[in-house]
């Protein structure tokens, strides 16, 4: 299994993901995100564009490694690893 940890900003739009561990099957990053979408429909619309790529200001790491393939999300997430999703945007 893979643990997914989210920026707290996303709980505003997906309260179903709040205050609970998010554990899904290991696989590619794309498969992991799809599994989260099954728990919270619409989730991937927030973090991915219509091409399935990570949105420009969304960052994703597998444990301490920033994901390499932001376009097709083919990076493998090992069993026991943790996926972190966070946002990066500056300004007011």
């Amino acid at each position, binding site marked *: 299994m893979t643990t997914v940890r989210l920026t707290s*900003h*996303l709980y505003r*739009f997906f309260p179903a993901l709040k205050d609970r561990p998010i554990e899904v099957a290991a696989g590619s990053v794309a498969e992991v995100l799809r599994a989260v979408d099954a728990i919270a429909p*619409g989730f991937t*619309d*927030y*973090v991915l*564009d*219509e*091409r399935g*790529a990570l*949105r*420009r*200001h*969304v960052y994703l790491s597998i444990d301490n490694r920033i994901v390499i393939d932001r376009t097709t999300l083919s990076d493998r997430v090992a069993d026991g690893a943790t996926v972190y999703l966070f*946002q*990066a*945007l500056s300004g007011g």
Partner: protein
Amino acid sequence: MSDLIILGTRKGTVLIDRADSAWRVRPIQHAGIPVCYAARDPRDGTLWASLDHGHWGPKLSRSRDGGASWEDVLSLKYPQGARYIVNYLPTPDFDPAAPQGDPEYQDATVYKIWSLAFGNRDQPGRLYAGTIPGGLFVSDDGGDSWELNRPLWNHETRGGDLFSGGATSPNCWGGTPASIDYGVFEPGIHSIVVDPNDSKHLYVAVSSAGVLESTDGGLTWGGRNRGMRMDYLPDPEAEWGHDPHFVTHCPAQPDHLWQQNHCGVFYSNDGARSWRKVSASDSGVHFGFPIAVDARDGQTAWVVPARADSERMAIDGGLYLARTSDGGQSWQTLRKGLPQQHAYDIVLRHGLDINGDCLCFGSTTGNVYLSEDRGESWQCLGNHFPPVYSVRFG
């Protein structure tokens, strides 16, 4: 007279109600989320807000209870195969002597839902959305599902049908960094005009391309830029490359169209078959973003002039509107109640609206002003709003 003003702002949707002849501001909706356009569907009262999340992509939000609660609607998405030709600045095409390069293509992703328009009453549920990069999306079920208008997307001025192969014609649609806040240089559709007498008759305006018209419900589109001039290209009278900032029409006389353009104010009284420049750079009416037209009289319009091009703020520190009632032959300046010194406000393309004798505008300085006498005098509804992107009467 409308009792509701809807603001789309940098920090959310602001609803302002008239009650007992006073205007009261409700607590902000979509708090903290940029809202680039918000409006009320006059047919069924649904409120719409186009959210421009910095991180999470553009979304539409809908309220069917007057703003008490809001729901996400299905995101607009370009279908697989929707490509377009990209030209990033600086590009050889801005040098007429540079050799032509091969087209570069990019898969389309919705960056912003920049404008919304509502169909006539004979098409209940018909909505239009204009996006960056320039796509016209259409819904016939009140926004539950959306479809890209392919004839416009595949128009010969964009390179032809790129769904089915390579470009068969040059791309004539430029892009403007002003259309989006974070440095993407794309063309966008910011104005959608539906003829109130003929639901199949549409206009869209694209920066930086120009105006297009369809008379068959969007099956075919043609350019309507005759008489337009632009100061920034080698050929100021080229058919394409114009930068309308906003285009609108007179509901009672829909052949009377107006545009505030980067290069002046332009007026057409023949359904955009020809345009006439009705401003002069030394007259105080030239550069600006929004324009409003009287609902009954197609010769009467209002603009909010600004100093072009390097300053982009109120002229000489004084904020004013200019009004014409003779098709742009003469302009009056309207200043009563507006600050006349130390004002730096700029009013963006969707930041001015008209309803009967009422006009309202909001600036990126967070000031909102209302006139109930056709612009003769103004009252301030607030000085501390977030930067205002759109103002619409409900």
